[in-house]
């Protein structure tokens, strides 16, 4: 049950040689009504020590044509009269460009909101007009320093397969989970799996099913929160033809589909009280009735429920039935967050890189030290699901044998570059410091206002007001 994990020694090697790092290809886009000529001249005078290749485009549409045709490292774009809108368009445009070029946005007196929004979107820098030499050089140097990454070989991981999924990790928190899982799987006891979103509740439920007495039967999963409330009952219990508008055929519900296997009710806290009563009856009586049908159908399923909510709190608020809770929580397994799992992050990263590299026909054998730093620094609100998502996207865009920072989503790269503090060299005002801190917390919570408000320990309305005030 416990995955065997062996770490390979790291084999550091330069991802890119210094010579290769030297040449930067920059596309300068003047924006509406402007001319790129002056900017181009400045750029060449200030930063061209033989390591720049510069071209211009008159506007966004023509820049898109040039981006489609060739690979660029940087786009230096002058934002127009609606800098926020322009910035959003540029970020969107570069998302689809090959080679993941970085954006340097140039604006007349950029607002704090614009700078922070740019930071959140992974923009390399926001410079103000008139352009100053030292700011531009600093931005380009930052890009060059970011580009010097060292490759680290992927550690070996021996995952424990759970159907199409796998359990990966050897942290103490996960070892506790494996032990409990081993104890409970052999029985037919109803299990409640609790844990934050993306911690792997369904994988654990599948592991229990596959290692238990119901393993020969089907594993049927129902996401109670995904299905509209008016359809959930018929999804679970089935319906007879014509029992309601839209019942075009007789439908066998998930309880019946599971047969003598396991029914996994995910996000059970989202179910209405009326439906909870029907689930309780099914669990107690071991029988169900299809919607619009009079026949009683016996069932022999093992029930596993999962939630990311605090069910005891929901009981106190009258949103969850206490009797159902005790029926479901015969055994409770609590899953740790990704942050609580420490170095499992590295193992999971390696596992997902190999998984997706195989799926997308890529050969990726290493990961850069900077990627590891960025992954370790991220808050992982979405836990393993978020990590999986990030790695899948990175593998898709990776073009060589090492996964590098440029392959990560803008949001993670934004955390890496950290735009130069403004004003340069001076001290921040209280408002600037507050705005920057709010922006950072929002970036860590993936823009989730509620979660950010919790971290900041302020009411969400206060946070919303401050976001509006700072133009975030």
């Amino acid at each position: 049950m416990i995955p065997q994990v062996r770490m390979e020694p790291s084999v550091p090697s330069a991802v890119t040689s210094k010579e290769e790092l030297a040449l930067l290809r920059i596309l300068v886009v003047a924006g509406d009504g402007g001319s790129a000529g002056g900017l181009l001249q400045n750029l060449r005078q200030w930063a061209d020590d033989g390591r720049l290749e510069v071209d211009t485009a008159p506007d966004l549409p023509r820049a898109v044509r040039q981006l489609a045709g060739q690979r660029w490292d940087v786009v230096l774009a002058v934002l127009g009269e609606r800098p926020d809108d322009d910035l959003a368009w540029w970020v969107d445009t570069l998302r689809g460009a090959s080679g993941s070029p970085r954006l340097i946005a140039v604006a007349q007196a950029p607002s704090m909101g614009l700078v922070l929004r740019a930071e959140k979107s992974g923009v390399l820098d926001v410079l103000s007009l008139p352009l100053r030499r030292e700011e531009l050089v600093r931005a380009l140097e930052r890009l060059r320093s970011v580009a010097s990454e060292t490759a680290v070989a992927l550690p070996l991981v021996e995952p424990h397969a759970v159907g199409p999924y796998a359990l990966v990790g050897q942290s103490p928190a996960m070892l506790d989970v494996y032990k409990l899982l081993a104890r409970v799987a052999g029985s037919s006891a109803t299990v409640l799996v609790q844990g934050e979103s993306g911690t792997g509740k369904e994988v654990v439920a599948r592991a229990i099913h596959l290692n238990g007495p119901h393993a020969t039967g089907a594993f049927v999963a129902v996401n109670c929160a995904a299905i509209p409330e008016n359809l959930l009952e018929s999804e679970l219990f089935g319906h007879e033809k014509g029992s309601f508008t839209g019942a075009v055929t007789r439908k066998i519900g998930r309880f019946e589909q599971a047969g003598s296997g396991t029914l996994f009710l995910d996000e059970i806290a989202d179910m209405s009280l009326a439906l909870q009563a029907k689930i309780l009856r099914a669990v107690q009586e071991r029988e169900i009735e299809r919607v619009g049908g009079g026949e009683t159908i016996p069932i022999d399923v093992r029930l596993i429920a999962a939630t990311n909510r605090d069910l005891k709190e929901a009981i106190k608020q009258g949103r969850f039935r206490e009797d159902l809770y005790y029926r479901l929580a015969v055994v409770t397994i609590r899953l740790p967050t990704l942050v609580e799992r420490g170095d499992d992050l590295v193992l999971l990263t390696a596992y997902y890189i190999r998984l997706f590299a195989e799926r997308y026909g890529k050969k990726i054998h290493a990961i850069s030290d900077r990627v590891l730093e960025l992954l370790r620094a991220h808050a992982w609100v979405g836990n393993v699901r978020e990590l999986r998502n990030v790695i899948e996207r990175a593998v898709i865009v990776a073009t060589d044998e090492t996964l590098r920072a440029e392959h990560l989503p803008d949001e993670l790269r934004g955390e890496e570059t950290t735009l130069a503090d403004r004003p340069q060299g001076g001290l921040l005002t209280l408002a600037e410091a507050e705005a920057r801190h709010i922006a950072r917390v929002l970036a860590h919570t993936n823009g989730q206002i509620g979660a950010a408000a919790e971290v900041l320990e302020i009411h969400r309305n206060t946070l919303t007001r401050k976001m509006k005030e700072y133009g975030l």
Partner: protein
Amino acid sequence: MTGPAPVRVEKALALMPELEALAPLRALLVSIARPDEATLWSSSGPYLTLGKRGVHPDELRRRMPQAFHRVTEHLQVLFKAYVEALECQQRADAPGVVAALLRAGRLEEDVGRHTQARTWYEVALGVAEALQDRRPEVEALRALGYVCLALGEYAAGARHFQRSLALAEAEFDQAGATAASEGLGDVALAQGQWGGAQAWYSRGLRLAEAASDAPRAGRLERQLGVLARKQRDLAAAGEFLRRARERFEVAGLADEMAGVLNEQGLLDAQLGRYTAASAAYREALAWAQRAPRDARLELSIRLNLAELDLEAGRLLEAEAELRRAEQVAIGGHVIRRLAQIYTLMGRLRGAQGDETGFVFFEQAIELAKAVERSVATEAQVYHAYGLFRSRLGQQDEARAYLERARELFDSLGEAVERERVEQELRALSA
């Protein structure tokens, strides 16, 4: 610390009666709906639809002045248009009356109130019919033709365009005749009558070229490109689109450039040139950014881009693009297009063999019926839903949904789509 949980949109809308007066409130409620933050990374996150988004009543209350402002602004310009019509009447300027009434109709159309727009146009037509100068009548008929087209009333639309054309020709109104020919082409295209559409567009193009009306000629060439693509004459389609693009770029018409590049993307996709198609859509988006803000145009491009990713098996990109499109639709008050977005989401889940994807089709049907009120959209959703069920091996349900789609296409007189559904049903029985 974080305050009360938001109310789900499905519950919020259930409390709101289907009254015309509440339409702006409904639109506001939808536009401020946000994904429940707790569900973003939860296992139900990928199935998030409008109904599962949340709204805070206090935010709705705070934003109500915005809704009032939009309503009063709309009424103000409508009333102004009417007063202008009245002033023209006082001056015995009947063409001015017609122009003012038509302007009011266009304002209604801009906010998606097609039925109300038709009423304005009908009043305008009544005034125009009494005039000796027939050009206002030509214009009123053309406006009526387009609004009927938008409402799916193709036969009525064709009648208005025919009358408009006859009058324009009698008056030697070349611009009017060109526009009426384009309208007749659009009706024929919508009904799948390729031959008719070809004839009308070609006629319009000849007239536009004779009048050196480059924007109109470009639009007709684009439509001829659309038509050629639908008839699988892809070389001809490419040539028409190239010519249209040249005209628009010279004229600096950003919105038309976005439109023609959007169509170029569809053509490239049909030719299996996914990289070229993607580049065309991206450039189309860039032109759309330069044009006056038009959420419908941006949505159309993003939906095509998502469909391209879906067909190329780039499911992550497709999903990300669909979520962006959803945000544009909700934020840009174009919730009518949400049904299409959710249909594509459902197709995406079907491609992943994910049965829970049915929630998107259910939401799309609800939106097509209650919000978009478009039988054509509802039929398309049922068609895609049937294919989704079929892909999952649920043949009885697949047949039921396809039969429903066929029934709806029948009611519209839509021959091409109906035949496609019929083919699917035959394949299911085989």
